């Protein structure tokens, strides 16, 4: 025990120091990788090796290799400074991307100089924020088992992983073809986002290697844009909860505005007892007899999709999968007449409705792309939100990332209210087996545990169990 605490305190001192150095090491390695072509990196490696072995010029001839490689590199770097051409780069980004789905976008590169340009490469840069110490400490390494002891302690691969996630995607450089003077060409660039949220593009860099092909000369232009990456979606079956369609007072226009008008179907003769406000005055004027408007009553289904954002002991990846499940359900087929209300607690209580002419799935997916775990509030805030809307809803779908006592209590109360519900728990594989249905024991078909890594299967099982 004492050794452990000593080790921990030692780590507490060493880690911040290491963190600063990681930044330096990372930036240096990125600079080398971008500025030097593969051949250039080989020459650089050879230079370093020759320098080490050629220290004593009397012993070996390695210093001659050093001198030659050094002059090659110096000439390369010097000629690379003569890259005076100007370009304009215009990006045409699509509306959305999806996590782990490759997407392509077009880039138009215009040559603003008087000379034709060849052997160019285009490097697109995404804004990369280096992780702070807290983030680094809290982050878990997904491929922890792969690393050896040293890597695990020092944590550089973990740090790299964080950097990669913050950036959001890795864009490979592409080769451009010959550009005539004042000409513009179009190129296609592919990238695969690794996390949801916004990808921030910062600069576009045109690189041209020197005559030896060792060092790249850069022309960088500011090109700030952002692209929204939607969460990963699985194919979910259409959700149908048992229960009735509640009468929704307000008809279609409830979905389009706040108001009281109802669907007007036809005219008919006045019958004694009809309310006066239903008289259609224009017809009355024409025909001289009271004519009354007929209304159609509206019934439709309204589900609440409740997302648990309270990430306490759970892992980040559980939360991400929960968001993906919510997105899958939002995209799943629905009967034309149903509404879906997404509820979750972020900085405030949020509720978004979609369906039936209410903005559609796009907006809900956008919202889900930006949802963050809530660390300030407690679970009771979610409980309040749900109870507030319990009267209007026909049913609830709960996506929970934890199955502790508080949540079980909450579910029990909801069940007491008599509403049909579907409870989905997203958990790690080792926790999944030990989950006790608790208050849902009587209706096991409405209780589903989705294991991280096997979500698609789990959602597929929902389809098979008939819910009537």
């Amino acid at each position, binding site marked *: 025990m004492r050794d452990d605490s000593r080790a921990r305190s030692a780590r507490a001192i060493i880690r911040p120091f290491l963190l600063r150095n990681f930044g330096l090491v990372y930036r240096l390695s990125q600079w080398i990788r971008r500025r030097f072509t593969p*051949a250039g990196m080989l020459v650089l490696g050879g230079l370093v090796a020759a320098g080490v072995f050629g220290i004593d010029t009397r012993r070996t001839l390695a210093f001659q290799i050093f001198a030659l490689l050094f002059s090659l590199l110096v000439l390369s770097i010097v000629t690379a400074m003569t890259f005076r051409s100007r370009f304009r780069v215009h990006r045409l980004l699509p509306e959305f991307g999806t996590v782990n789905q490759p997407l392509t976008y077009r880039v138009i590169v215009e040559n603003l100089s008087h000379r034709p340009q060849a052997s160019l490469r285009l490097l697109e840069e995404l804004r990369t924020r280096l992780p702070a110490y807290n983030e680094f400490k809290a982050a878990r390494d997904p491929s922890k088992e792969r690393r050896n002891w040293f890597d695990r302690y020092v944590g550089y691969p973990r740090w790299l992983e964080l950097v990669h996630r913050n950036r959001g995607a890795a864009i*490979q450089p592409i080769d451009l073809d010959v550009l005539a003077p004042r000409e513009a060409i179009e*190129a296609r660039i592919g990238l695969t986002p690794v996390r949801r949220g916004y990808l921030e593009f910062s600069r576009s860099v045109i690189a041209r290697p020197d*005559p030896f092909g060792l060092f790249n000369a850069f022309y960088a232009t500011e090109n700030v844009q952002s692209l929204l990456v939607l969460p990963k979606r699985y194919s979910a079956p259409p959700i149908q909860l048992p229960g009735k369609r509640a009468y929704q007072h307000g008809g279609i226009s409830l979905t389009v505005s706040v108001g009281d008008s109802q669907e007007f179907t036809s005219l008919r003769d006045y019958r004694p007892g009809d309310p006066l406000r239903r008289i259609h005055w224009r017809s009355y004027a024409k025909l001289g007899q009271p004519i009354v408007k007929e209304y159609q009553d509206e019934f439709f289904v309204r589900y609440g999709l409740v997302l648990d954002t309270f990430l306490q002991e759970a892992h980040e990846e559980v939360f991400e999968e929960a968001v993906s499940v919510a997105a899958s359900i939002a995209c799943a087929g629905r009967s034309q007449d149903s509404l879906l209300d997404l509820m979750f607690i972020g900085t405030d209580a949020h509720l978004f409705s979609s369906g039936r002419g209410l903005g559609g799935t796009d907006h809900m997916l956008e919202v889900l792309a930006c949802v963050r775990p809530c660390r300030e509030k407690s679970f009771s805030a979610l409980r309040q939100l749900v109870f507030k809307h319990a009267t209007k809803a026909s049913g609830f779908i709960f996506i929970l990332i934890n199955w502790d006592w508080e949540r079980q209590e909450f579910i029990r109360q909801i069940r007491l209210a008599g509403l049909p519900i579907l409870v989905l728990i997203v958990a790690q594989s080792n926790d999944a087996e030990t989950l006790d249905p608790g208050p849902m024991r009587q209706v096991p078909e409405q209780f589903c545990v989705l294991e991280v890594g096997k979500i698609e299967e789990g959602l597929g099982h929902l389809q098979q169990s008939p819910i009537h």
Partner: protein
Amino acid sequence: MAIFNNPPFTETMNTSVIKAPPMLLAAGLLFWGWQTDQIVFSVLMAAMLEASHWLKFRWAISDREFNRISDFSSILFVIIIVYLFMTQSIDGIFTILQWLPFIFFLIVLAQVYSHHGRIKLSALFISLRRKSAQAAGRTITEVDLTYPYFVVCLLSASLGSHRSLWFFAGLCFLSAWALWPVRPGRYGLRIWGPMLVLAFGLGYIGQLGMQNLQSAVEGMVLAWMDELLWRNRDPERVTTAIGSIGRLKLSDRIRLRVDAPNKLTTPLLLREATYNIFNLGIWSAHEPAFTFIDPEVGGTIWTLNRAATPTQRVTISTYLKNEKGMVPVPHGTRQISDIAAVGIEKNPYGAIILDMRPGLVRYRATFDAESSYDAAPTPTDLIVPDQYRAEIAQVATRLGLSGKAPKAAAEAIKDFFKQNFRYSLIQRGRYAGSTPLADFLMNSRKGHCEYFATATALLLRAAGIPARYAIGYSIQEYSALEWQYIARARHAHAWALAYIGHHWEVVDTTPAIWAGLEDASAPWWQAFFDLWSWGSYRLADWRYSDVNNGDPTSLLWLLVPLFAILAWRLYRSERVSRSKDLAQTEPNRCPRRGEDSRFYLLVDRLGKLGFVRRQGETLRAWIARIKLDGSTPPIGPILDLHYCYRFDPKGIDARQRQAMNSMVETWLEKMKV
């Protein structure tokens, strides 16, 4: 607009995926074999590797097998390192490095003969191996080991035992061969060639420079050590050990500047200190007390002796490290003038200490070389120490010194050294170990000035002539740049003084060519250092000019580099360049009706002139885009007829057809390539 596809994710990106051209590896291996005397093996290995270009069979080598081969090579490497380290220590490292091509041969062979032709990076690094990185967005990096193997061969070759210029020549040749396929397509031989030759030239100069740099650094380190350890500890030069001058000989730094009104026919000797006791390799002085000299009225003239013989004058400039320091003066100095010193001290042996301020000092010495005002000889000036008595006596007997008159004896000693002894350079880069005087006198018969001076002094003493040992500088080098004589550190000299005929005479038996020999071994970039030294001298002169007016024109020289920078920046500004024609491609042809339209000849001609129609672009849009200037005949009417011919189901009649053809002909006439 043209479109160029980059598939969103390819398996192989980055790193060295260029394959070495055929026979390059063989050349590298043979080069290595030649340099490390492993010709037989290298020929075998080269043959095996290059045969892959002719033999068609390939093995299907899986990732696991690659991993195993890589592990085997690594283990072999480690075993060999351990073995060699234990048997040969540090040298073992170099042997291992010579054998690197052997160690990695197996894995390169495996790659060359595999179906895939490339190796995954995970084969080489264990950390990348477990559960391959197939997380989304990661590319699987593959490498081609041929080029890195080539570089390894070159590195190993450099560790071989041959040392000749052929290595560099071979290196250049192989580099050119290796770099040619790597160059970007836009550069042809016209640019690449001269640049490569320039790189080779710079590399050659660089490697020469590196060799010289090492010697110079070693020399400098020794000289500075000497300065730190010896000179500063002994500001009054109470003692001097044999070898300390020798160490100075390693440095080319300019120490003194002497402005003599007339050209010097013989080297002028400036003396710093004199000694008369020699023991165990160290000369020391007996009671070298310093006394102050009072200046004349005005404070800038110090008189040491008021004799009235004809004199010469020289102006000496030197640097004082501290406020007080010993300065060299010619033999027989009467007066030191033109200096605003705080005080000047002298000692009976003729040494002068200047008390002024650190930095550049300049003084004029008025002297009469014939007469020297050193103190009269004392019995100490006749002592020959016990250690050398035997050898000195032997030589003295041989020369018959005891029977000769002092002058004749001195001549005999001079002849003796002249005929039998040679001057030997202090080897740069090697610490001058002290040779015993006896060895110098009896066996080797070659050394540098200290040995000559010491032996001379002792022999003179053996002949009964009082003799002393003096150290200082020999002024003989005239600098055209500075218009005065300069003395470098390596002009430091030692000589003997003999008391003949009631005055002290200089007896310098060091062969006169010593300065020439030293000069010859100077590095070629000495001139740059001299320039720099002269620059700082002028600057210091201007700074410290208290007596003489500093020369303002010297500052103008500082502006030269500024002008150079200005000129360079002006030159770098935009230049008008001519546009080059683009490469051409064949225009797209898919004719249906009107396939034989003459308009296509026009399209061809435009293609030859460098205008290419893009995919998805109609003819009209293309003509509008390329913006032909007014000198070309109009294409519009021809295009209209062509369109009619091609796309009008009614077609065109013969007359219109003829008109179109003739317009095309006219156009082609006017627009020759």
